[in-house]
């Protein structure tokens, strides 16, 4: 049977990456002194399911590596290997290596075979070191499904489990082998199997791909229900099974009630999905494309609805009132529909925060600092695209906080602070924005040092005494660093400018507050979604354009005398003591304006990439939230335009790309 396995690769990768994330989270939760068996089980299951998948898809590197990892974890689970910081480090490193291997298998990156081999060797050493020579081989092989502590032969007093197994139609065709299942169960103790053949049809009617048998099993074992259910992990969905406890020989429990085994779990449900991280299941995987289609369609419904509302207002007659109330009802429903569809794209920011416990641990270790990381508001939701792009700036800020902000323990003690510094990541909603704050209780920004640096580089004149805010602004300049010595973490001066640029590209902004000796706080404010922008409609001739509100500084009327020509370099206007280039939108876009005289129209002062220009337009219209549509899908990039949107009347308006417009003028001036 030739099944093309490649079609399942994507799902395997996706699930594996998610599983690795939950594995990493679980490892970080582990308390060295008193490891939680449940957590170790989680980690083991992740390694196991990745190994299984990798084996199935012939990713030999991954399978071999995870096998070694699994052996070590099995040892930890069985208590043969003692969990030390060293072992934990190895496990965390394994997560990294597995990510690399997966990415390499995806064809997206390459991996360093030496590093993998080294780590695999270290893992093997760790296994060998703690493994008593006698207990070695069989347990390793038994890693198939074994819950190690129960692998010992069952004592006669162990409880009796009754398990009924009825394969569904597709169990065999999915490559599940009942015998292997029984073998796995047999490892828990003494197993008796009885097969029922009553459903087997006449020979001629047999479909060789189907399994007609069902079984009744009796397992005498000290294993928990959960451990037994683990054997069914691979056949979940392919067969019906029921595990009941029949009462033990020593203490016959009431047979009718399935006595709850120690870790009281109703069934294997939660464990059956090894990839599922936090949250109460009940989710499905949907491609973003499908969601976008849905959003498009709903957008259309919104437009149709507003068109109907306009028509409805004109209708007269006996049923007009009823029509209007129906339309009002429709409007409410459509608005709700629109909101819930937009929410589908939203994910909790916890996904972006999840990498920090690990990062903070590593960085703190390397710098010899004690850091306590506090995460708040992980459930705050924001758009998937924003979420994906906010990760790197946050990493940068957190690293900065640890490297520059938090002092060494001894320094902190001297300053009368607790030796461990706190880095706090917090997210919450404010209006239609999401606020993410990165704060620390470190030494704060050193205004004098920043100012001295800026003076030495000629950024600030010797006589100037900028305000505190203005000084903080300086650290966002490209190439600015106050670090006396660049470390491999931060201090090279490539950083804060990139952070700010990334945040601006998402339509957000970043502010700093800091108090010497008490710490600093970076506040990032981002739009909830990239699909919607707050815009100001402006018109030029017959055309309407949308200027993103975030880039508008001010709109003003300029007298004819306020415009000066600079020989052949274009026009400038005076604005709050500065001269700004004047861009005539009608000239840039080749549109016939209502008037070419500056005093007849309005100048919108816009800012982008730290530069300000005046945009000359005919008039301002309303402000509104608009849904951003791509022009590139069907057409292509248009200089000075970042996208398009559909207005209430169904017509299309272009959204201006302010930084792009500014760049195009500076290029023109340079030319």
């Amino acid at each position, binding site marked *: 049977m030739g099944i093309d396995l490649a079609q399942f690769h994507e799902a395997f990768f996706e699930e594996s990456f998610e599983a690795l994330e939950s594995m990493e989270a679980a490892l970080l939760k582990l308390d060295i002194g008193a490891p939680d068996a449940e957590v170790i089980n989680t980690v083991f299951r992740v390694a196991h399911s990745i190994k299984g998948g990798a084996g199935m898809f012939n990713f030999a590197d991954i399978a071999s590596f995870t096998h070694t990892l699994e052996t070590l974890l099995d040892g930890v689970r069985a208590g043969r290997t003692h969990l030390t910081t060293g072992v934990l480090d190895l496990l965390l490193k394994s997560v990294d290596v597995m990510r690399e291997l997966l990415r390499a298998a995806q064809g997206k990156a390459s991996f360093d075979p030496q590093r993998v081999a080294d780590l695999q060797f270290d893992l093997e050493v760790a296994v060998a070191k703690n493994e008593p020579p006698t207990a070695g081989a069989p347990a390793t092989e038994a890693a198939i499904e074994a819950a190690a502590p129960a692998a010992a032969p069952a004592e006669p007093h162990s409880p009796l489990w009754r398990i009924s197994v009825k394969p569904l139609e597709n169990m065999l065709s999915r490559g599940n082998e009942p015998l292997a299942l029984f073998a796995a169960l047999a490892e828990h103790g003494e197993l008796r199997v009885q097969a029922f053949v009553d459903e087997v049809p006449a020979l001629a009617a047999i479909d060789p791909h189907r399994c007609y048998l069902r079984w009744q099993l009796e397992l005498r074992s000290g294993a928990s229900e959960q451990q037994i259910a683990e054997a069914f992990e691979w056949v979940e969905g392919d067969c019906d099974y029921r595990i009941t406890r029949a009462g033990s020989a020593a203490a016959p429990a009431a047979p009718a009630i399935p006595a709850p085994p120690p870790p009281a779990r109703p069934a294997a449900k939660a464990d059956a999905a090894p990839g599922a991280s936090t949250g109460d299941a009940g989710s499905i995987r949907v491609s973003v494309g499908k969601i976008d289609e849905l959003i498009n369609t709903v957008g259309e419904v919104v437009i149709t609805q507003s068109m109907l509302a306009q028509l409805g207002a004109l209708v007269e007659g006996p049923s007009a009132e009823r029509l209007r109330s129906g339309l009002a009802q429709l409007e409410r429903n459509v608005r709700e529909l629109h909101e819930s569809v937009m929410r589908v794209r939203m994910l909790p920011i916890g996904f972006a925060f999840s990498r920090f416990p690990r990062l903070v641990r590593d960085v703190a270790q390397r710098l010899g600092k004690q850091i306590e990381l506090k995460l708040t508001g992980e459930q705050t939701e924001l758009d998937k695209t924003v979420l994906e792009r906010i990760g790197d700036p946050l990493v940068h800020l957190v690293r900065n906080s640890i490297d520059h902000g938090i002092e060494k323990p001894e320094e902190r003690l001297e300053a009368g602070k607790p030796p461990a510094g706190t880095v706090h990541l917090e997210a919450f909603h404010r209006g239609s924005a999401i606020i993410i704050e990165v704060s620390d209780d470190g030494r704060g920004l050193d205004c004098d040092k920043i100012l001295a640096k800026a003076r030495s580089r000629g950024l600030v004149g010797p006589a100037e005494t900028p305000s505190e805010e203005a000084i903080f602004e300086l650290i966002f300049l490209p190439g600015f660093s106050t670090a006396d010595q660049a470390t491999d973490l931060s201090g090279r001066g490539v950083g804060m400018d990139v952070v700010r640029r990334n945040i601006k590209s998402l339509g957000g902004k970043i502010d700093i507050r800091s108090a010497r000796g008490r710490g600093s706080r970076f506040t990032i404010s981002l739009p909830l979604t990239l699909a919607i922008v707050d815009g100001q409609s402006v018109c030029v001739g017959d055309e309407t354009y949308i200027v993103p509100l975030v880039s508008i500084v001010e709109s003003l009327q300029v007298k004819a005398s306020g415009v000066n020509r600079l020989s052949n370099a274009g026009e400038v206007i005076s604005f709050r003591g500065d001269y700004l280039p004047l861009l005539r939108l009608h000239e840039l876009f080749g549109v016939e304006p209502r008037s070419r005289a500056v005093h007849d129209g309005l100048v919108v002062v816009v800012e982008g990439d730290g530069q300000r220009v005046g945009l000359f337009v005919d008039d301002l219209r309303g402000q509104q939230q608009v849904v951003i549509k791509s022009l590139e899908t069907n057409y292509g990039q248009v200089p000075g335009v970042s996208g398009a949107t*559909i207005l209430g009347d169904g017509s299309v308006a272009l959204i201006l790309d302010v930084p792009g417009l500014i760049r195009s003028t500076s290029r023109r001036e340079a030319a």
Partner: protein
Amino acid sequence: MNTNPEKTAATEAATHQVLTFVLGEETYGVDILRVQEIRGWSAVTKIPNSPPHVLGVLNLRGSIVPIVDLRKRFNLAQAEYTAVTVIIVLTVRSEAGRRDFGVVVDGVSDVVDVDAAAVKPTPDLGSRAATDHIRGLVSIAERMVVLLDIDRLIGSQIVEPLESDAAAQAA
């Protein structure tokens, strides 16, 4: 329109259905499978600095679709856009993926079955005329129909000049 789906399926290999439309004096044809929809003219939003044959963009059920004037593209005399002017929305496939765009034509004529064997190659008109975008000529009811290869027609005209524009600006 004499569409007949059953017949299409049966004779797929030998014939295919073509939507014909009129532009000035000439009749053109496009593969019916590439036609998304036919709609009346409505005002478009201009795109700054676009090639002259790109009239602008329209909202087509939520996506932004460029509209091309085939008269300008083929250097024909200009006509007025009226309420009876028709836009045919087509799909092209290029390396960049699927793109939808609309062409403005004088009027849609018919859907006809074209026998693959009846399609004649475009005669060599020398270097005067680019005929890359023409798949062939076919005679239907004694009229010559120019079969268009829309992938070539648009794939090479709406996208590429723009990208080279952008490149020229970046340089």
